[in-house]
């Protein structure tokens, strides 16, 4: 309680939210309950469980909307925790929910976008084999995200974090009959797991050194320059950032996200807009005071990672043929923007971009899903000319593309402008220019996608048709905020009675201390807008259909660059090589080292003396050196083969080794006692 008193002194806008904040935990529970209910009874219902999932999210949207409006007008700051158990040495395991500006924004975003995607999925998944299971897993996905964003401490955040990972694994591999999809699910899970180690270690380090896992405690301690926390700031900050890199697909952990397209399109939409990839950015925003006050030393590195992600991944979207992959790389690039902004010190800028991006990226994915639903192919070479067949999808997709490209006055323009302003203010001028260049690339690939998909002549099979209403209504419903939400946070503009997005987000336990520009910087806004317009123009010039033949080119093969991009900078190949290495090169390396330790020392000495002898005898000639290395490699090769034979598969030989080993240990213990 004393925390909240302290906070009330520092943050002027902090009501307690009353009944709605006190019961906000319902939002964390309802999708999980829906998950269980769908599994239990979904098959017997008319829509095979979809109504339960939609009902749960609609309930959440009620709570989230009320809280959102309350937060607009008076601010809501409330925290409810239950002590589940004591871990020992003063640490306790608590669950609960936190209601403040950041989490309310996320509640609202996840329930609104989630609800629209769920409704859309009813039409998209109609007639599929496992509709019930789909909605069950989908509810679990949303529920885990609510648990994550509602977490009052790092432990609950990790629970939600892993829940999101699990649900994404289930959904990416949803069509598990195809082995490719299973692999994609595994890839996402494994990549995230590597990064999660960072999160868990970071959480332990921060929690144990501070004596509390609570975010409020961390916030307060960071602002107070707590020496215990300051001691672990750099390492803890890096570890937590590693976790965020995995979930938010920052370079080089981005490799899982494009493959995650294997899931049904609504999954991609939810994953890219609100639930999964935003988790890393959310963590960075949640821990913002920690990075702002204590771990600022590692900020340039984080900004660098974000900048690499935003630019390099945007380029990859240029060469993708799969429309979902274009959007996937675009998401990675936009996540790079968010990460760059939060890392550079732009709490509001990064989170605001998360907010706007969620709407138009969900819109774009659902639009892409609508197109895929119509032409039964992900490949843009099977599309073209769809403007005539699918007018609603076309209009909304173009709105989403313009918003993503950052065209005035759509949402993306304002949030991107804020990021540029932050980078400029914080002194990352080079990164700012990269971001402007990234805006150009963004506009360029979206122009290409729109031109290839909707213009020219139709190249696929069958007769495409507009999607059913349950799919087009969410598209329109998402197009509206994609146009409008940018106005919520025009620098220097205070909307009467509700202030603006910056003030809503600032409702935290402590003041965030990030910089807010007083007004629009016309130079930056102009530069961003010019870059976006130039990108659209160039994209249109290259990829628009020929006026007479209605044909268009779908690629420009620039030497060196094109193959590099097509192979995604060889990063996937490298990662695959590392993973496969357990069987291949890595195993041989380990084998070699093994052998070197056992036989190699003896033989190496022998070979060395042999070399010495030859050196004395005939000088250091070519054959001597060659012989040494050939001999050494032959010896290691043979010994490697011998070591390999230890793996006989005979259980009893293993048992003998095990018993002898245990005996030796026992004898050592007895003797040493």
């Amino acid at each position: 309680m004393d925390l909240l008193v302290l906070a009330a002194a520092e943050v002027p806008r902090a009501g307690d939210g009353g009944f709605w904040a006190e019961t906000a935990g319902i939002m964390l529970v309802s999708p999980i309950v829906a998950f269980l209910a769908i599994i239990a009874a979904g098959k017997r219902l008319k829509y095979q469980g979809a109504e339960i999932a939609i009902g749960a999210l609609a309930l959440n949207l009620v709570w989230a909307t009320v809280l959102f409006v309350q937060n607009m007008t008076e601010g809501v700051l409330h925290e409810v925790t239950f002590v589940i158990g004591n871990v020992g040495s003063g640490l306790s395991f608590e669950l609960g929910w936190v209601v403040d500006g950041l989490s309310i924004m996320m509640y609202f975003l996840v329930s609104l976008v989630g609800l629209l995607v769920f409704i859309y999925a009813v039409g998209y998944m109609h007639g599929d084999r496992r509709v019930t299971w789909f909605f069950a897993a989908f509810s679990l996905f949303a529920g885990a995200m609510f648990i994550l964003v509602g977490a009052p401490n790092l432990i609950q955040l990790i629970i939600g974090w892993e829940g999101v990972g699990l649900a994404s694994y289930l959904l990416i591999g949803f069509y598990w009959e195809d082995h490719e999809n299973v692999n994609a699910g595994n890839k996402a899970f494994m990549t995230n797991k590597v990064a999660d180690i960072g999160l868990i270690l970071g959480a332990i380090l921060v929690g144990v050194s501070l004596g509390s896992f609570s975010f409020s405690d961390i916030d307060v301690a960071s602002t107070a320059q707590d020496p215990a926390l300051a001691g672990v700031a750099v390492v803890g900050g890096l570890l937590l950032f590693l976790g965020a890199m995995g979930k938010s697909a920052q370079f080089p952990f981005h490799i899982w996200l494009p493959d995650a397209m294997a899931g049904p399109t609504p999954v991609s939409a939810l994953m890219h807009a609100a639930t999964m990839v935003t988790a890393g950015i959310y963590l960075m925003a949640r821990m913002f005071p920690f990075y702002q006050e204590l771990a600022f030393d590692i900020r340039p590195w984080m900004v660098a990672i974000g900048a690499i992600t935003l630019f390099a991944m945007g380029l990859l979207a240029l060469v993708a043929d799969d429309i979902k992959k274009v959007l996937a790389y675009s998401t990675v690039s936009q996540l790079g923007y968010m990460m760059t902004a939060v890392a550079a010190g732009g709490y509001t800028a990064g989170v605001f971009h998360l907010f706007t991006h969620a709407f138009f990226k969900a819109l774009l994915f659902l639009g892409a899903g609508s197109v895929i639903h119509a032409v039964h192919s992900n490949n843009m070479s099977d599309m073209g000319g769809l403007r005539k067949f699918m007018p609603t999808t076309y209009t909304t997709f173009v709105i989403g593309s313009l918003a993503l490209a950052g065209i005035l006055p759509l949402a993306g323009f304002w949030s991107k402008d804020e990021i540029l302003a932050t980078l400029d203010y914080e002194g990352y001028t080079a990164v700012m220019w990269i971001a402007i260049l990234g805006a150009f690339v963004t506009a360029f690939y979206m122009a290409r996608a729109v031109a290839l998909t909707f213009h020219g002549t139709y190249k696929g099979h069958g007769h495409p048709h507009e999607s059913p209403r349950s799919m087009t209504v969410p598209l329109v419903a998402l197009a509206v905020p994609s146009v409008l939400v940018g106005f919520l946070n025009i620098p220097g503009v205070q909307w009467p009675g509700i202030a603006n997005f910056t003030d809503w987000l600032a409702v935290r336990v402590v003041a965030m201390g990030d910089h807010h520009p007083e007004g629009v910087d016309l130079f930056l806004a102009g530069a961003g807008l010019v870059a976006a317009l130039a990108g659209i123009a160039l994209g249109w010039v290259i990829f628009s259909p020929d006026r007479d033949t209605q044909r268009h080119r779908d690629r420009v093969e620039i030497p060196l660059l094109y193959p590099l991009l097509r192979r995604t900078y060889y990063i996937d190949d490298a990662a695959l090589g590392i993973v496969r290495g357990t069987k291949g090169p890595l195993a041989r390396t380990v084998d070699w080292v093994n052998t070197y330790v056992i036989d190699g020392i003896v033989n190496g000495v022998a070979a060395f003396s042999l070399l010495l002898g030859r050196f004395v005898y005939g000088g250091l000639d070519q054959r001597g050196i060659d012989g040494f290395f050939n001999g050494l490699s032959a010896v290691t090769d043979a010994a490697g083969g011998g070591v390999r034979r230890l793996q006989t598969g005979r259980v009893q030989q293993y048992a003998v080794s095990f018993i002898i080993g245990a005996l030796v240990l026992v004898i050592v213990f007895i003797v040493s006692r």
Partner: protein
Amino acid sequence: MIANQFLVLAAALFSLGVYGLLVRRNVVLVLLSVELMLAAVNINLVVFEAMLVTPDAVGQVFALFVIAIAAAEVGIGLAIVLMIFRNRQSANIDELDLLRW
């Protein structure tokens, strides 16, 4: 009675079990040897209980747990043996070397 007479007997029984485990080729007999080892462990537990006399009879409780787990182990083990025998027409443990290099 001293504790060691039981402990040494249990050690002997355990070693016999290990011998059987290592030397037997019929999978069923290997499982029997494992049971012998578990019996030896149980004797140890009960002896320690008789020696220390805890208020909750912890040693005996754990002996009961071991018995229960052993029953489960035998059930699963024999099911696996059954499966292997059905597929390979053999109960020879030396032929079950699929997990090799």
